[in-house]
């Protein structure tokens, strides 16, 4: 029998973990939104589906199957984009369609719903450890590489002459993006994790006039949405994923009420 968080740190541990995950989502989301990868986040998360299917067939934790496919998908997208110079979102879109087709033949009914919307129940210790380590890797990557990411964002050629290995940076970014989706799978499911990455950052983009403000607003909103959504879900006695995304979506529509200053 596996050890569960409930045995040693009820709720508090889970809350800290989901907050860490939200910080990672807010940070990686900021750069995804600035790079116009908004529409790519959702399709990318669906690449996890075949991995979940394989894991269910082979009877191991679907999270590891999903994670393996997400990271593989990131490398694949990076490779295809480099070889063919097709835009990232187009490659992600095609990969997603194929992954969804393959995934739907492997999963069915309840399993698919769990995979899409997040499975209820407590985390096992390995899952919790993965959550903490994975979130710290993503947070560390964005904070350490933020300068290279900024220059890459403005112009890949300028980055090249500023001693940035653009190809490697792009690969690491996609891997960090895939890892962030993997982090949220247990809480939110593949359908909703993309939203937690994108929505807070999309709100932040409307108001920020500089990078620090952008990152701060995005992280604060991601954490606030996660906390508020989890709280409301616990009151309603339902899975937290949909509530987290509803809170984030609500904040987005509220933000539209205020016109952006330019």
């Amino acid at each position, binding site marked *: 029998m596996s050890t569960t968080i409930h045995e040693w740190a009820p709720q508090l541990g889970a809350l800290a973990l989901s907050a860490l995950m939200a910080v990672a989502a807010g940070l990686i989301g900021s750069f995804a939104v*600035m790079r116009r990868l908004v529409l790519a986040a959702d399709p990318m998360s669906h690449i996890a589906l075949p991995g979940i299917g394989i894991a269910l067939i082979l009877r191991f934790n679907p999270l590891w199957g999903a994670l393996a496919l997400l990271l593989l998908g990131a490398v694949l997208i990076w490779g295809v984009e480099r070889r063919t110079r097709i835009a990232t979102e187009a490659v992600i879109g095609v990969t997603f369609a194929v992954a969804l087709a393959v995934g739907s033949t492997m999963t069915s009914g309840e399993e698919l719903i769990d995979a899409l919307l997040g499975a209820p129940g407590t985390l096992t210790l390995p899952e919790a450890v993965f959550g903490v380590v994975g979130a710290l890797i993503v947070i560390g990557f964005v904070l350490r590489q*933020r*300068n*290279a990411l*900024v*220059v890459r*964002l*403005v*112009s*890949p*050629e*300028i980055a*090249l*002459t*500023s*001693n*940035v290995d653009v190809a490697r940076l792009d690969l690491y970014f996609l891997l960090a993006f895939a890892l962030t989706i993997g982090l949220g799978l247990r809480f939110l499911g593949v359908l909703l994790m993309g939203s937690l990455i994108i929505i807070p950052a999309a709100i*932040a*983009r*409307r108001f*920020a*006039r*500089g*990078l*620090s*403000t*952008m990152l701060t607003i995005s992280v604060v909103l991601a954490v606030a949405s996660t906390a508020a959504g989890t709280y409301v879900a616990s009151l309603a006695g339902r899975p937290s994923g949909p509530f987290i995304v509803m809170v984030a979506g609500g904040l987005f529509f509220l933000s539209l009420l205020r016109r*952006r200053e*330019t």
Partner: protein
Amino acid sequence: MNALAVQDLGVRLRGTDVLRGVSFDLPRASCLAVIGPNGAGKTVLLRALIGAVPYTGRVTWAADTVLGYVPQKLDIERDLPLNGHDFLRAKAALAGGPDTLRAEALRSVGLPEEVLSTPIGNMSGGQFQRLLIAFALLGRPNVLLLDEPAAGIDAPGQAQLNEVIRSLQETRAMTVLLVSHDLSVVYRYADHVLCLGPRGACFGPPRSALTPETLYEVYGQPLGFHVHDHP
């Protein structure tokens, strides 16, 4: 001594030869102007020289070369939440070097500090070009590659920018590679001209390269360009 030697450079993109058989040597601290009609491969040449596109032939930079690249007008979204401070801070962190470098770079390009708090997508064409040059200077380059730095800028702004480039070249003994459509600028500032045209490339000092015959060959039509000799 040469800053750059290019031998038989060729670039093929999507099955089309964009550049073929380009060869030239560029002495240190000199200014090369690259001219030619639209689509002649001027930008591709600069991108090949910095290693951003695959090429055939040989490109040899001097061993101590530090490149600064100022790309053609970048299309920055107006609502991109990056301001001038973010942009220069990123470069300073990547390049290292003393803090004084930033103020010096801004002074060199004549960009006031207060402009830096503006998001880069909201800057005027002239401000953003100056920011890009300041950005390049933070890497302490000894070679500056500029792709139509004055494009989209009003006439007084263009004149100022040309003076900035000129003074950088003189005071810092920089080697400058400049893509330009303005032949009077080329004539005034360049030590060498590389013409890229449909019939191949030519290279030489402006006085011999910018003859009506070569210009006709490069642009495929007669150009009303007259050389004015000023004392």
